[in-house]
């Protein structure tokens, strides 16, 4: 009780991007509270987009000014090269996803009303909508920013929850197929809460082992504290479960297809891009900063997880008949490819920065492509909403060649065909893994890629070489937002596929400084 505490200090400049996003989210809540209903959407959209753009500008400013070399906020938040790169990526992806969220009537008018009831009719009639999605999305994005930058387990847990809680809610707000959407929310919530309890138990055990929840201090304790290895190993395992769940790695992937399918498609796009990027940042930081000295122990486990994830993702994707589920399994498989990169870290510093830059590049490439793919999914509609069943997509190439062509291009990027961003992403990760001595893993990865390519090509064949159904889905004319999203995604995929050098260079620069300890 009588220890001396110096008053803490906060480096506001370093934390500015996050503060802007959280501040805008709070302003958004105030708008919800005080603005009249018909104005809300008109106020929210500029606030949300401007704050994301502003946060991005602040991140860039931070890079220009020079990457900080010491953790901010009394060692709780590490704003280092990889963090800044990940922040930039998440902010751009979130900006694009918000355009998609803004676009159409994807969201339910009154979440509490039973579908088809009088209340619902009235809410629809009044043109009501849950404009809360904007502040909720901003809170989620703020959590995503904090998650990979957190330098102790307490902040990481808070960030995990700030990121997840709004997403649980957003999942359940789809306007059409409400039962599916709510089911997705329940499943995501229950499994998410379950996994964060594991994360916490792991945190508690590591705290018991190291006497601190600071990542650097845990790392320092690894060689010093003896006789309590049980605490350490169980703690690391449980922490790993919590983090791998968020990524959707193989034994913990069950939620991903269900949630991706049931959630409103713009939210799926946000989750598939932003959450994955943030979770990989956090995973890398924990395993590299805190547990780097223990890699003999966790590396074999991650090998197994990576193999299982790639195989499960690639093989189960083949059997899917639903486009969103298929993309979800593809996301699982890509998580596996990224884990190959994580396994490749751990040796010398040069090897580390190589693997890290490969992962960062892969995350950018995959994030843009996946947002674009989900944006296309929102445009192919049936009478009752988006046409998810693959059989409905048959012959789309004849009906709407441009859209089908773009989608085919995204699928080829997922498959990693040369001249798309996916190729260089996979190439960089696999190259780093070979250099790190994980050649068997790379072989499995290449085989899994080939299997995955099979089902991507199958969809392309279905779109272009089979006859369209008589009452096939219609392609809605995209709004400006959706068109912009698809355009940005196509441009990014082409650009990263043809001239990967600038972004690769940026990723290398970011990875050069590694995670600060």
């Amino acid at each position: 009780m009588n220890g001396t505490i110096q008053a803490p200090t906060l480096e506001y400049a370093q934390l500015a991007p996050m503060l802007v996003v959280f501040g805008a989210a709070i302003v958004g809540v105030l708008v919800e509270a005080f603005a009249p209903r018909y104005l809300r959407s008109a106020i929210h959209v500029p606030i949300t987009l401007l704050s994301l753009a502003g946060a991005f500008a602040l991140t860039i400013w931070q890079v220009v000014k020079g990457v900080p070399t010491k953790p901010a906020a009394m060692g709780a938040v590490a704003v280092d090269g990889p963090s800044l790169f990940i922040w930039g990526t998440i902010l751009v992806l979130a900006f694009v996803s918000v355009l998609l969220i803004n676009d159409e009537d994807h969201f339910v008018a009154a979440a509490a009303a039973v579908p088809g009831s009088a209340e619902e009719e009235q809410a629809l009639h009044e043109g009501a909508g849950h404009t809360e999605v904007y502040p909720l999305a901003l809170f989620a994005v703020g959590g995503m920013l904090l998650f990979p930058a957190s330098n102790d387990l307490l902040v990481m847990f808070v960030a995990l929850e700030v990121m997840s809680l709004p997403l649980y809610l957003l999942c359940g707000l789809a306007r059409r197929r409400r039962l599916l959407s709510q089911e997705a929310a329940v499943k995501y919530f229950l499994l998410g809460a379950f996994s964060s309890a594991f994360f916490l138990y792991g945190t508690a055990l590591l705290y018991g082992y190291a006497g601190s929840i600071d990542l650097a201090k845990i790392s320092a304790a690894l060689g010093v504290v003896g006789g309590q290895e049980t605490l350490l190993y169980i703690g690391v395992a449980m922490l790993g479960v919590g983090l791998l769940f968020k990524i959707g790695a193989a034994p913990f992937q069950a939620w991903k297809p269900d949630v991706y399918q049931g959630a409103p498609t713009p939210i799926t796009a946000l989750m598939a891009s932003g959450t994955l990027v943030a979770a990989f940042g956090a995973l890398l930081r924990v395993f590299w900063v805190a547990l780097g000295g223990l890699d003999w122990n966790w590396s074999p486990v991650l090998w197994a997880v990576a193999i299982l994830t790639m195989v499960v993702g690639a093989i189960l994707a083949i059997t899917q008949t639903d486009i969103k589920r298929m993309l979800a399994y593809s996301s699982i498989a890509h998580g596996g490819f990224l884990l190959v990169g994580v396994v490749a870290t751990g040796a010398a510093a040069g090897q580390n920065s190589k693997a890290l830059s490969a992962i960062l590049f892969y995350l950018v490439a995959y994030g843009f492509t996946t947002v674009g793919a989900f944006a296309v999914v929102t445009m192919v509609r049936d009478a009752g909403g988006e046409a998810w069943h693959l059989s409905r997509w048959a012959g789309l190439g004849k009906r709407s060649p441009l859209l089908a062509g773009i989608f085919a291009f995204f699928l080829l990027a997922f498959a990693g065909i040369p001249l798309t961003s996916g190729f260089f992403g996979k190439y960089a990760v696999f190259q780093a893994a070979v250099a790190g001595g994980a050649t068997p893993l790379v072989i499995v990865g290449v085989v899994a890629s080939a299997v995955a390519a099979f089902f991507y090509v199958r969809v392309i064949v279905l779109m272009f070489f089979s006859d369209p159904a008589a009452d096939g889905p219609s392609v809605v004319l995209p709004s400006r937002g959706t068109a912009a999203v698809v355009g940005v995604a196509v441009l990014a995929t082409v650009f990263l596929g043809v001239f990967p050098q600038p972004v690769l260079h940026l990723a290398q620069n970011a990875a050069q400084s590694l995670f600060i300890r």
Partner: protein
Amino acid sequence: MHIVYPVVVSALLFSIGVYGVLARRNAILVLMSVELMLNAVNLNLVAFDVWLRDRLHGGQVLTLFVIVIAAAEIGLGLAIVLAVYRNRQSIDVDRLRDLSETGASEEAGPPEEPVGVGEDADREARP
């Protein structure tokens, strides 16, 4: 008192929570089991805090955060479960099977469900 006692109690509590999550079918009881797991963590943290004589009381501070976030989580969880109950008149997690490998992904519609009020409007939306 030796540190082993609180740690073992907390491990037991956590295990009971895990069992509850896996075995219970009622969503509310699953939520309660998750709370049990979180409280096991709290017990652990406070015990370690005392045992380590942590000058900055990191464990106790973390406990406070866990308590607050658990409250927020449970409020949100109840809201989601409530929304599901309104539509389905059931919160049996085993019956939430519309989204699964054999459910909506198949050509056939989802298995029979307790038909809730006004569900038809939603059903039409399915292919």
